[in-house]
């Protein structure tokens, strides 16, 4: 299953993403998040990714990030999350 995410993931938009993902990952083993159109991710957004990854991991699945832009990649690397999340 692939979810395409657009725009900024910050304090205001993160709860909506969290809800969408919670509804999506039931019964899914591999959730692909297309980050091609994500301009910015804040710490609140990172928390959503971590929560999702933890949930998927406990259910034996995983989250894969696709087409991550350099700006977002920088944040993921800086926070070490690039080592935890699967990035294609």
């Amino acid at each position, binding site marked *: 299953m692939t979810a395409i995410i657009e725009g900024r993931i910050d*304090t205001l938009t993160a709860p909506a993403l969290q809800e969408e993902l919670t509804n999506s990952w039931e019964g899914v083993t591999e959730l692909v998040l297309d980050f091609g159109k994500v301009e910015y991710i804040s*710490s*609140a957004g990172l*928390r959503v990714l971590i*929560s999702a990854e933890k949930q998927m991991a406990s259910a034996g699945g995983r989250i894969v990030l696709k087409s991550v832009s350099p700006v977002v990649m920088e944040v993921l690397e*800086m926070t*070490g*999350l690039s*080592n935890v999340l699967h990035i294609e």
Partner: protein
Amino acid sequence: MKTLFTKRPKTFASKLSFMLITGTLAVIFLVFGLSSLITRKGLINELIASNTARISIFSNRLEKDLKVVEYSVKNRTSSFREHIDDKDACKAIMKEIAEECNVRESFYALKPEVKGKLMVDALKDENGRIRITERPDNYKYQYHHYYLIPERLRRDYWTPPYFTTIAAQRAITYSHPVLDNEGNLLAVMGADILLESLTDSLDAIVANHAPIEGSYLIILSEDGVYISHPDREKIANETYITDARENDSPELESLVEMMREGNSGSETISLYGRKNLVTYTKLDGVGWGILLATPFDALFKRLSKTLILSLICLLLCLIVAGLLISRITWKMSRPIVRYSDASMKIASGDLDTPVDKVSTGDELQTLGESLENMRFSLKEYLHEMMESAAKRESMEKELSIAHDIQKSMLPSGECAVISSNDIEISGFQEPAKEVGGDLYQYMMKDGCLFFIIGDVSGKGVPASLVMAQTVCLFKAQKSEATPLEIVNQINNQLAEGNTQNMFVTLIVGKMELGSGKLSFCNAGHDPMMLMRNGGVESVEMAHNLPAGLFENFGYKMDELQLQRGDRLVLYTDGIAEAENPFKEFYTLARLEGRLLRCSTTVPAELIDEVIEDVRGFADGAPQSDDITMMCLYYKQ
């Protein structure tokens, strides 16, 4: 009365009564106007019928009067012809004729060419005595129309009215041709009748069949001369043509012409300046016309009287009705007035006075109940609102206290700046909300400087709790602890039972003041910047995960040898991600650029310059994230 109509009605009751009364008035006037129109029409029709009946009576009477004269002459024609050469016998016949009641004078005139010229008159004086005379020789009766027309036309003839020579009275003459067996004219015989005697007998009839008051009779001779007219001066003096033209009544002329053609009927025409209904007919024998005129104003005089009387009655009724309507509407609108007062009270904030309801069982009662419900709901709502306002107030108060507590957990007062011979360190924080998730702290322990800067994911109260926990853990460290140990401890403490996946990015550093050796551990935080020899660069460090996510994560520690004059700048992403009104970020590049331009070595001043630049960039746009900055100067 005037004030009643000019004063603007203000209350509902007065408006309603005003409208009802006006409506009733309009309906009454409409009905009144219509009925008066219908009545007028009916009156006219009735008048046509009655005047037609009257005129037939009048014409019958007139014909009868004339026939009496005609018969008194005609009945004696044969006897006269028999004795035409016997003058005395003829005179006796004339006397007989003259003795008839209406006859004033009888005559005969012989045809001069046949019987010799002779005309005999039998004249009745006022006392009824009859005097018989022969006309003198020089009297040329054969040129008079009473002789000429019967002679030429061989028929009876009624002359137009003329003035008699003796009493100057108006009279008309009937003349009859006396013919022999071959149809040759022998003589003309006839009789006069005074117009007065004719019209007097007619007047009696008219009086008996009393037409509408003001009605008058006009009789016209065959030639159009007035025989009878209310204006006696016109009788025998004027014809209808001159009269119509002099008195500007052209309709009279056309009406009489129609009548003379043998028509009869009724017409509405203007006569002597008044509108009249004129009923007319033509007498068969004499060819006279008879007109009965009834002026409309006379006809409607009675009607107007009746109308005015009934109008007064109606107005009286209306006044009574108006009073009743006012009274009823006032009574009916009383609940509305009450409700209006009640809603005014509610609007002014008085929610405790119950609405004065009515039990009319209609919409007014429902309205009252709704009003009462509204008052009750408003009261409850207001109560709830005040409670929630109080709650919010206390919450705000608590938050404000939390803000103070959180502030007290950061370096403040005497500890705000640590300055020794070797170093000076200063920090700054501006939370986006009352309480935030950013943290910084530093302390000196056994010749070592410990510092921490961090950013908890999220904002507000949950973040502030994690922040407090982190600061407490940092502050409780012993001087032997390495940054790695501190980060591990914080990570494990936070990760324990962290269902919300809250995390904190942080850098913990420990500097030995004497040697300038800096050991530090970065848990997913923005790299610190080193200002050395006029340049600015990010410090290379291991990419570790933020603290609080995975227990026993294998963090790595880095080391850096500081040189005297070095300045170390630490910050949270609130600076790089500060936004201006165009949603643009401040960015790390801009921060680097600003740091390059800083000339001061005092950390507090450097921080002030950067914060001022960030605020200038934001240009009033709301601060979306906590802003934290820390600067360490390794003195020369």
